[in-house]
């Protein structure tokens, strides 16, 4: 069921357009991630849903009702801010209880709900603590408890893990996913971290310069990126200039390859995307292409090789190290060759 709908939203700050005619439907109880580099408009979208920013054009609907002009304090959504924004003059208990006190609930109604929330975020017994004496991860949990106590139908999360170290970030990600599934509410999550997005989301929206590039499940977006931008942003990719002669027939790196894509104009210029892990290294005489190893870095699970093929550089992941200046052959399977129309974005195929 559609819960939130953005219709033709545009927003500019001064002369800079941040969001350009964006439309979007958000399903009930899904974990949706807005993914993009800084300045792509993802935080602005979140702030428009939260009611902190007014769109210049377009409407925001909540369960079919127009809430575009509803102030933040009347919206059934709550936000987990990037900087947590706990109230420094209140202790943990009063921070979490804030939303209920504002509603005018009585102390004996508030107390059990605060305790329930602290249990949910594993911080029972911290009621009397001052918030500036908590660690980053604990502050994060309190902010989460504070945002969830109003029982919002949607939680907005603005890069909540930015300030945490890697280990803590992983723990909090798991925790957050657990809470989302336990409560069954919609999470709209903003991040520039593609790995975080792939791990947590039911659906990902990839944004660039205020335009939706692609919407899809993490596997869809990783395996079938719609254009070179998405491919490059999600994981590492080799992006090569190519020409599509006919169905299943493409030329790049000076050689003709068989691929699995079709439905292009004859001899259309295309982007060819190949994941580094899909390139197989063989002996020079057995390869489809021949190249020279420029560098070989140990990355933990694999080695990352740079291989020069003619004028182009290939990034290759392999488990066997190669010597620098070694001549190698390269093999790419037809279904590992992804052909992309130049500049295509989500929704283009419908036109």
């Amino acid at each position, binding site marked *: 069921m559609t819960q939130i709908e953005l219709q033709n939203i545009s927003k500019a700050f001064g002369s800079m357009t941040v969001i350009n005619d964006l439309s979007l439907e958000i399903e009930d109880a899904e974990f949706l991630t807005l993914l993009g580099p800084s300045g792509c408009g993802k935080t602005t979208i979140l702030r428009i849903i939260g*009611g902190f920013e007014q769109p210049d054009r377009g409407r925001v609907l909540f369960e079919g009702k127009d809430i575009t002009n509803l102030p*933040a*304090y009347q919206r059934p959504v709550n936000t987990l*801010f990037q900087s947590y924004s706990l*109230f420094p003059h209140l202790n943990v208990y009063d921070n979490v209880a*804030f*939303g209920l006190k*504002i509603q005018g609930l009585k102390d004996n109604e508030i107390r059990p709900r605060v305790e329930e929330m602290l249990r949910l975020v594993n911080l029972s017994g911290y009621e009397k603590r001052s918030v500036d004496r908590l660690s980053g991860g604990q502050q994060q949990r309190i902010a989460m408890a*504070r*945002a969830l106590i109003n029982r919002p139908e949607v939680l907005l999360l603005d890069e909540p893990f930015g300030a945490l170290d890697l280990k803590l970030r992983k723990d909090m990600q798991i925790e957050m996913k657990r809470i989302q599934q336990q409560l069954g509410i919609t999470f709209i999550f903003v991040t520039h971290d593609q790995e975080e997005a792939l791990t947590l989301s039911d659906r990902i929206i990839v944004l660039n310069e205020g335009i939706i590039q692609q919407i899809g499940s993490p596997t869809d977006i990783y395996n079938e990126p719609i254009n070179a931008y998405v491919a490059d942003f999600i994981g590492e990719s080799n992006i090569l200039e190519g020409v599509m002669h006919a169905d299943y027939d493409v030329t790049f790196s000076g050689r003709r390859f068989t691929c699995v894509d079709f439905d292009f104009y004859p001899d259309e210029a295309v982007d060819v995307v190949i994941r580094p892990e899909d390139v197989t290294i063989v002996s020079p005489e057995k390869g489809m292409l021949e190249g020279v190893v420029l560098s070989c870095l140990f990355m933990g699970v694999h080695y990352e090789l740079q291989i020069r093929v003619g004028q182009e550089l290939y990034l290759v992941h392999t488990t066997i190290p190669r010597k620098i200046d070694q001549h190698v052959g390269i093999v790419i399977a037809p279904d590992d060759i992804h052909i992309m129309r130049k500049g295509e974005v989500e929704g283009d195929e419908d036109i």
Partner: protein
Amino acid sequence: MSKFWQRLYMGLIFGFLYAPIAVLIVFSFNEGKTRGSWDGFSLTWYQQLWQDSEILSAVTNTFLVAIITTIAATIIGTLGAIGIEQYRSKQKTLILGLNQIPVINPDIVMAVGLMVLYRSLDLDFGYLTLILGHIAFTVPYVVLSVLPKLKQMPRSLPEAAMDLGATPMQTLWQVIIPYIRPGIISGALMAFTLSIDDFVISFFTTGNGVETISTMVFSMARRGINPKINALSAIIFVTMLVLMLIMNIRTERAKR
């Protein structure tokens, strides 16, 4: 050796600064009425001070004016600072400049200006004109002491309150005011001390027999200073010293 000169230099400076106050306090305990010679210790002047209705009414006026001024200037200045903080940078600079002018402007200009303004409005000189004058010259100081605290407050803090359902009014009272409270308090203390301290503006904006301590002392001085004034000045000095200490301790704590 150099340490000796350092200490001597410092001693001379502080001696110069504090000698008048020391002499004043010492002579407030003088038995006799002459200012030049010491006639023995006594609390006469302090006792007489409490029996002098002219002095008592001036003290009452001074504190009455200071308290009303503090309350009004703190409210106006705090709300003003919150308002100024909402503006975009260019307008903010302009308004801050306008706010700063009364601070650097000589008191006498402000005082004469107020007097002319009251005259042209045909106001009766007395409590109203005096208090309005004091509010006018203390508000900018309150604004200046509240603004840094507001600047320090993350924008997401009031947003978090509204996100949790607080109306703008509830956000102001329950989040913004508590956050900037240290700034408000030091602004209030500053307004209070400035008001008590003031002579120039009071002199030009009061009338109809409403005297503050400073205007009273000034008119007395023409008739010859009564040692009761020494006693009064000593009390004021100690009061101000205590206030200043409180203010300094507060700012030290805020830093930590």
